[in-house]
């Protein structure tokens, strides 16, 4: 990762900008939403692969900053929702696409299915992914 940052620095113009945009492991919230409102039904469980990825990425940026390659100018978190019509679709997606990074516990699955079944006909389920965006200036 550090070498990739060195490469990016190499091709940026003097004073160029680097935007780092990535999801952060933070036990993302599972929610059921409808016109009537939103209900949190649990949280995903972060697996070691997800946590280690974050640690490695953060360390790489810290190292790049320490070497005087970039200066951080701004940073914040924002929500990025993955949304499905029904809980079974969410469960299938998490298993197939996010296996090894996060998982849904049985209690969260049950609470989500129950809340979705009792909610309005237009209700959907969603996972609130926390995205980190930061702006870095090439030094």
């Amino acid at each position, binding site marked *: 990762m550090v070498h990739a940052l060195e490469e990016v620095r190499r091709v940026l113009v003097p004073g160029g900008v680097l935007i780092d945009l990535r999801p952060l492991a933070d036990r993302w919230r599972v929610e059921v939403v409808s016109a009537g409102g939103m209900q949190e039904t649990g949280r995903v469980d972060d697996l070691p692969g997800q946590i280690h990825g974050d640690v490695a990425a953060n360390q790489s940026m810290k190292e790049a900053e320490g070497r005087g390659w970039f200066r951080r100018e701004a940073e914040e978190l924002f929500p990025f929702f993955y*949304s499905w019509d029904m809980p079974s679709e969410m469960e299938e997606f998490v298993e197939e696409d996010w296996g090894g990074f996060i998982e849904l516990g049985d209690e969260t699955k049950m609470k989500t299915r129950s809340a979705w079944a009792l909610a309005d006909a237009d209700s959907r389920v969603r996972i609130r992914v926390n995205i980190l965006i930061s702006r870095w200036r090439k030094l």
Partner: protein
Amino acid sequence: MSLQRDPERNEIKYLRHYADLAGKRVLEVGSGEGRLTWQYAKWAGAVIAIDPDVDSQRVAKVDRPHDLENKVHLSAASSEYLPFSKETFDLAILAWSL
């Protein structure tokens, strides 16, 4: 499947808030199938979008909007060895790739 990604379009809102794209030469690292690329490229001057996954690049080439064909250039490359010896960029975006 009924999956919707970022229906509120928060990602492009934050990206535009954080980066002045107007007329800029942009390098996007980890462009995948172009989900984010197609959203911001209209404001940029030129975009080179790289991803090491050949299948994703193939999908991106098929999905590339017609009006972006001359503006967005796709390349199967790794961030560890950027295939540019003289080209430079005003802005680099690490798109879920660090």
